[in-house]
């Protein structure tokens, strides 16, 4: 018998701890990956993902059952990531993106690794709100409507943000001469 996310949520609301674990297991990779794209660091992404779930369970009773769960979850994750990014601006750190900036130039498989790291680096160069919408669309597979609903922005704004994010990513890849590597 398969349990839908909605059933799990109802069980969570009834205080079923097993359902809490199951719901976290169901979404943890997607939330973590989203946070990782937003923040670029494993530890920060894990903290943000954990905080996201804690907040989700605290406000689960307020969740509008007419809305889809995943966009709501990712919207909370996006808020957490933007808060952490804002905190980063206030606290100067060293080597924040260092692990992503260390481009491996070794000949074996270097191109693929380099491409992956270049894209990750370019993603981190986007404005947080553009990045959030872009990752939701391209990585989490949400539609424009779902994103607009999740981040409470007009549909046109979401489309504009995602188009700008794409253009900036492509421009950066061209600028860093990654284009001809295919």
């Amino acid at each position, binding site marked *: 018998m398969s349990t839908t996310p909605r059933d799990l949520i109802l069980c969570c609301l009834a205080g079923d701890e097993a359902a809490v674990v199951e719901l976290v297991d169901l979404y943890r990779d997607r939330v*973590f990956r989203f946070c990782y794209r937003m923040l670029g660091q494993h530890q920060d992404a894990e903290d943000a993902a*954990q905080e996201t779930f*804690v907040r989700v369970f605290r406000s689960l009773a307020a969740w509008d059952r007419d809305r889809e769960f995943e966009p709501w979850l990712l919207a909370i994750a996006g808020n957490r990531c933007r808060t952490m990014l804002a905190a980063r601006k206030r606290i100067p750190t060293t080597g924040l993106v260092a692990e992503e900036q260390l481009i491996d130039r070794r000949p074996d498989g270097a191109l693929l690794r380099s491409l992956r790291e270049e894209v990750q680096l370019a993603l981190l160069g986007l404005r947080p709100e553009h990045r959030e919408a872009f990752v939701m669309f391209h990585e989490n597979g949400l539609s424009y409507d779902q994103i607009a609903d999740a981040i409470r922005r007009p549909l046109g704004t979401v489309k504009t943000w995602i188009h700008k994010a794409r253009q900036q990513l492509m421009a950066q890849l061209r600028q860093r001469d990654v284009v001809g590597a295919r």
Partner: protein
Amino acid sequence: MRCEQFEERLHRRLDRREDPGEDAHLVRHARRCPECRETLAACARMIDGLNLLELSVPDDDFSLRVLHRTSVGKPSPAHRHRFRIAWAAVGTAVALSLLISVAWRADRTESSPVPASLTAAVPLADDSRLGADIASLTNRTPQHGPGFSASLALGQQPPLSLLLRWKETWGDATWSPVDGLADGLNPITVPLSVAVEEIRRTIPLSLIDQPPAPSADSVRREVRSDKPPVA
């Protein structure tokens, strides 16, 4: 196809999650236009790069840590039960206070005139004359309800009407406790010396200025002096 149209078409395909490299129109234009060729190549690299992005996963105990954090601070069933009892007690106390307050107000509004049974105006058969005397002495109009003065004068418990209306009665700055008890009986408001002088003036002088009663010695002396001398 112009370059603007190329860009527009490219984004439209990306919006539909389709590979722009499979669009013949885009590829044909890109072959002729170096700028758009670079854009198409960058787009392809971006898609490849996104597909290559690490599929990182959180640590294994991630779910348990979340569960621990959501459980911390959540009261246990025993705590919740105790809280419920405490809240019920507080609620009951508040409700009782409100009830007493409402009853008190209702009683106040209905307390005049006070029922005769509560006023304790009970001069008995032998006391009927005393009661009548007191009533005539106090000659009080029943401002505070029937039986008020008699009950006070008889030293009985004050009636309920007085208990209930003490505030409005005593709160009146122009009212004095002896007002209305008897005609002409007023509180002393003048200075003590003036009052003493007034008392001296109103008490008959004969009582005040009468010489002191003679002592036994003086009477004896007087008798002796009145006796005629023995011949």
